């Protein structure tokens, strides 16, 4: 049996990448091999120029991500003078970018899986899994934000920055508002974006992750810039 499947996979691998073959459908139905597996086997078969395929498929989204990040950076660049006087925020910026980006990735992949498993078909607002996912990420985000801000403030203090109670409070507030707002935005974007792509018979995984990580980066810098202008 194993040998039989291996022989089919070898046949599939030798096919031209662009050519659709009924063998994919047959292997998927008969042997319950996922379409993703079959896709990978065919995608990087001997008829494929591996680097060209990867570059062609990745370059556009990569350039788009660079442009979106730069637009977010533009907001910070425009308040550079204020930003540079707030050492804890300089320490916090990459930390928040990383953190919020990974929450976007978690939302995207988990919601995509829920959609594939049919858990969100009719019970969108009553879905227990969805509610738990949101609350789990929100709680994690609040905890990591508090830990990250505390560590940033400690490092800034040790480096000789002047910190009074009002400043510490404002920095905690800005960090928490930024994280909570973005977790909410990312959740709704992942949910409704996921539903949209799923209804179009596309795999939401392929679209949601670049979208949410870009929104996370862009949104973090825009919200941070706005909050710094407002509070400082």
């Amino acid at each position, binding site marked *: 049996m194993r040998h039989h499947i291996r022989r089919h996979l070898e046949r599939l*691998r030798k096919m031209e990448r662009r050519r659709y073959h009924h063998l994919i459908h047959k292997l998927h139905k008969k042997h319950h091999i996922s379409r*993703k*597996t079959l896709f*990978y*086997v065919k995608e*990087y078969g*001997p008829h494929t*120029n*591996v*680097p*060209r*395929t*990867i*570059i062609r498929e*990745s*370059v556009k989204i*990569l*350039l788009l*991500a*660079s*442009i979106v*990040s*730069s637009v*977010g*950076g*533009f907001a*910070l*660049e425009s308040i*550079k003078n204020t*930003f*540079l006087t707030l*050492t804890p925020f*300089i*320490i*916090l*910026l*990459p*930390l*928040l*970018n*990383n*953190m919020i*980006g*990974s929450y976007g*990735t*978690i939302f995207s992949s988990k919601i995509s899986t829920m959609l594939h498993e049919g858990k969100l078909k009719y019970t969108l607002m009553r879905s227990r*899994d969805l509610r*738990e996912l949101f609350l*789990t*990420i929100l*709680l*994690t985000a609040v905890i*990591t934000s508090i830990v*990250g801000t505390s560590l*940033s403030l400690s*490092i*800034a203090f040790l480096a000789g920055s002047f910190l009074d109670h009002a400043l510490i409070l404002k920095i905690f507030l800005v960090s928490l508002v930024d994280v909570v707002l973005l977790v909410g935005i990312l959740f709704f974007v992942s949910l409704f974006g996921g539903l949209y792509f799923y209804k179009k018979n596309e795999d939401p995984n392929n679209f949601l992750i670049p979208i949410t*990580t870009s929104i996370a*980066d862009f949104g973090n*810098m825009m919200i941070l810039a706005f909050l710094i202008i407002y509070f400082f």
Partner: protein
Amino acid sequence: MGFFGKNFKEILTSEMVSLLGGLFVGTVLAVYADKLLLIPGMLLLLPGFLEMRGNISGSLASRLSSGLFLDVIKINRPSRRIVSGNLLASFFLAIVASLALGVIGFIFNYFVSGIFYPRIIFLPLIAGIIANAVEIVLTFSATFYFFRKGYDPNNIMGPFITTTGDISSILSLLIAIVII
């Protein structure tokens, strides 16, 4: 599942690990603020530059992991065509993205701030080449290492790349500043 179940613990642990990488970068940025952040347009390209490592090496790790799990890439005798193709593509993408960031920074400086500063093009380019030379090799070795040890690289490589990528990016930016 429950709020404090397996998912919560896994997410919190991996976030705490990547938090350390972010903290390291932030501290280096604060220490070298006069050298790094005072460069015109630096804040514009920095987030994209830091994110690039995740985008490129993250996808590389994910493709390699899929190949390893599907047995398309053999752990003891990896297909040279697929592996070298992946490495070559990742490196090329890194150069393109770094160059794009440099050009965006230059355009912003010239048209918005009225500053003619062509070095901003070479800064992310040189730093991108250095950082990716380190990160791509590291990602490749780590993916194979974790897989050989019986771990699922998909669960580990995310925080691993974020943390090591942040460190290699910021150090390579400092090296690039010294070179330029």
